[in-house]
């Protein structure tokens, strides 16, 4: 997990899993690369076609509320987003992000504007906003989640360790 760099795409509060991966595209759930072309379409229709690999999704509060569909963080990752930043996350979405190897970072996203150039260092727990020349810090994950993220997700983690290792 090296430092990541890219542009900020801003979203509001309460971005639901229906904004990210809507039910009307339910039939694409077993075709994730195709579903990823529609990622976040119902929040910002231009996002999927305009973002560049490495960019960041930057939400407000309660990002990812709603359904347990892991397809939501999965297609954000497939689209090439390096991390999701928000003031707070819905519980299942947050856990799913880590499980699919997509960093989910809790920080004060009011200090980030659309298009800001960001750099994230997961190990140091820092977001550097190069446009505004400020640094934001974020709390470390519980050790079990850090390990899962380091392995690139829960499936890889279980494949490697065969079980949950809390210590």
């Amino acid at each position, binding site marked *: 997990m090296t430092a990541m760099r890219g542009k900020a795409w801003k979203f509001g509060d309460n971005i639901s899993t229906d904004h990210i991966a809507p039910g009307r595209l339910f039939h694409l759930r077993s075709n994730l690369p195709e579903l990823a072309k529609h990622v976040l379409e119902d929040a910002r229709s231009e996002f999927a076609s305009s973002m560049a690999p490495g960019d960041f999704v930057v939400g407000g509060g309660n990002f990812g509320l709603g359904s347990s569909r892991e397809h939501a963080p999965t297609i954000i990752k497939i689209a090439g987003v390096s991390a999701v930043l928000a003031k707070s996350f819905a519980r299942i979405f947050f856990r799913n992000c880590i499980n699919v190897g997509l960093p989910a970072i809790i920080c004060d996203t009011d200090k980030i504007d659309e298009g800001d150039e960001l750099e994230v260092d997961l190990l140091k727990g820092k977001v550097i906003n190069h446009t505004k020349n400020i640094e934001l810090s974020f709390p470390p994950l519980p050790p079990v989640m850090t390990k899962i993220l380091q392995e690139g997700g829960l499936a890889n983690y279980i494949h490697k360790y065969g079980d949950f290792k*809390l210590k």
Partner: protein
Amino acid sequence: MGKTLAEKIISEHVGREVVAGEIVVTPVDVCLVQDGTGPLAINQLRKINLEKAANPQQTVLFIDHASPSPRKELANDHITLRQFARKTGCYVSEVGDGVCHQVINESFVRPGDIVIGADSHTCTAGALGALGTGMGSTDVAIGIALGKTWLRVPESYRFVVHGRFQPGVYAKDLILHIIGMIGADGATYKSMEFGGETIENMEMSERLTMSNMAVEAGAKCGIIFSDEKTREFLLKHGRGKSYRELWADEDATYERSFEIDASKILPTISFPHTVDNTRTIEHKDCQDVKIDQVVIGTCTNGRLEDLRIAAQILEGKKKHPDTRLIVVPASRKVYQEALEEGTLSILNQAGASIQSPGCGPCVGIHQGVLGDGEACLSTQNRNFKGRMGNPNGFIYLASPATAAAAALEGKIADPREVIG
């Protein structure tokens, strides 16, 4: 030290005393996936060569979201589920059997169980005194294969409800009121624990509605004690032996406590596009809101008692000519009972389209997708933009009584004025 229901259930599973905030690895009793999340779960297990089930008799794969299948891609997903079940010995709950959260509680969940499901409304199991929680496909896949998961023991919020509802007011109004009060992230990561005489007097049908919507306040679970009502429910479904009584300790520690007077709750409606955007029926915003479609059903309010409430209001009457009425019984058992006692006949004669048990139009796949600019009033649990298949639709959430009143009037209407 006294324990909350969540602490008590997790402590029993891990074999030592746990307190809120700890992270534990715990055995799980029941696992479920559905046709929207199961294929991904199975693919994950295939990828790491772990296609097995630790407890196949307690693992259920539900075909309920796109059921019967409206598209070939989804029919193929159903095949994936059936193949996995054949290989591992898990159950498949088939087309027409019903919504996962209804069937799992009718037939599998016991008080004190830990239930994980790749569906956010797995918290419904809390109504039976179980800790049910929604997770993603990979988490549940690993739970199925290894028979365990990791959890953070949640802090608990206690909701004590006293008094009696006015006629025309139900558990749905209470839970919408609570979510409106604390917000869509008001209980994120927490266990909501419901108690007090109002909850004690509730039938299981209403308790299931309460627990079902805990996730709409962000909660990990929504747990209710188990008592004589729970025992009767289990007996009715041929599982009397699964009963055990379970209460939180008197001296349990709660992070927050709320007292609610049920007699002051009014019929409550969530306005588009968030569940916490609530209004009481007396609010001016409820005047002249035209409704194009009414849905009565889902894991929130598709039980026999819900259909009866609607039938009582609609008996001998016709729905409004400009409003479609869709009724979806939550399970085959509900469908059968409603059929035999004549409830479905009343709804059919009132002009309802009665559909196969399952999730119906709630997930936006089929059976009632909204047109541009259309408004739907539904008894379901979510009204997010795009939820019913069209981001240009508007979804209002309410009780079956309010839904039936809207079907009659063609607009949002006060159920207290039409209730028999």
